[in-house]
């Protein structure tokens, strides 16, 4: 036993072969503090597993978005005599939506810091602000869509509009689902406190919310900004 031993080795079980209440699961083994890329330390900790699994899910979600992006890229000029992007897009609304989402991503990050400090009040405040900015984003987007439908430029007008509504709408759907999830998480933290499994879910929520902002970056660049140039 030396000073550099992990909690495992100190407890006499470098391979974590049994779990009881006294045991702490880590991603460690064989003297390494963290699971190395070779994974020789045995099964990783629950937090690593859950985080990685969610990361893979996000990548699959991004592939799904890429299929809708590809469709939009192909159909960008298929306006069928109807309105094109230049005639429809309200640039200031897009600026506002981008700003709202970016701020909400920032406040989501702040909530993660508050969670690390186990501060219930600031976590809830930061999450609430995140949700409000997310809601604002959805309201603006909804107004844009409603306006376009009113003008006769709904998704059934042309293939270009179909692909636009689909790819932007899919993102909006994800934001909506995220807000539902956020509300549920806020309730859970309030009722059950910072339990380990709830903390894992918060990590997943953070990953999800930041990923949505990344997708929005691609969206507003390709669909709106490049689309405006046509």
């Amino acid at each position, binding site marked *: 036993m030396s000073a550099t031993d992990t*909690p495992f080795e100190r407890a006499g079980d470098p391979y974590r072969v049994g*779990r009881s209440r006294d*045991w*702490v*699961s*880590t*991603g*460690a083994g064989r003297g390494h*503090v*963290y699971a*190395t*890329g070779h994974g020789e330390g045995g099964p990783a*900790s*629950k*937090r*690593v597993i859950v*985080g*990685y699994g969610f*990361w893979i899910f996000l*990548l699959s979600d*991004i*592939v799904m978005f*890429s299929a809708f*992006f*590809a469709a939009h*890229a*192909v159909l960008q000029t298929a306006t069928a005599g109807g309105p094109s992007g230049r005639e429809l897009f309200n*640039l200031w609304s897009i*600026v506002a939506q*981008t*700003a709202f989402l*970016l*701020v909400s*991503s*920032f406040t989501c*990050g*702040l909530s*993660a*810091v508050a969670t*690390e*400090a186990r501060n219930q009040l600031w976590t809830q405040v930061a999450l609430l602000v995140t949700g409000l900015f997310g809601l604002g984003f959805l309201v603006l987007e909804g107004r844009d869509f409603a306006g376009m439908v009113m003008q006769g430029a709904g998704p059934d007008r042309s293939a270009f509009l179909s692909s636009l509504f689909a790819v932007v709408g899919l993102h909006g759907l994800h934001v909506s689902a995220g807000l539902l999830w956020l509300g549920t998480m806020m309730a859970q933290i309030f009722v059950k406190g910072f*339990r*380990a*499994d709830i*903390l*894992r879910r918060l*990590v997943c929520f953070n*990953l999800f919310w*930041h*990923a949505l*902002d*990344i997708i929005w*970056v*691609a969206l507003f*660049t*390709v669909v709106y*900004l*490049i689309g*405006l*140039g046509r």
Partner: protein
Amino acid sequence: MSDETDRRDPGDVGPGFMDAAELTIREGIARYVIGFVLASLLTAASFYVLNTSLIWGPGIPVALIVLAIAQMGVHLVFFLHINTAPDNTNNVLALAFGVLIVALVIAGSLWIMDHLNQNMMPMHQMMQMQR
């Protein structure tokens, strides 16, 4: 089982949140603030580039895409904490795999569909183009 406790063991963290337990609150916030400022600057730049005469017209889409990639990078590093530490290797590999697939789907589809549209254009559309 660590489920009933929230004891913070340094090894028990998820990808991208590796060192979260070791940072002070100030350092944690600083990371997000820097990311937010950088992302805002890049976003503003995107909107600016749209109308400016600073960049040659046909090059604007390229500039926008470069700025978008930069923004995504800022998000990945500052908000999602992707780094090159050895325990992060799986995450980076997964990300690279995802990026590859997205590139293949989008670039492949664009290449294929462009050719198909050219070769299989309906006759009435071709005649319209002659006028």
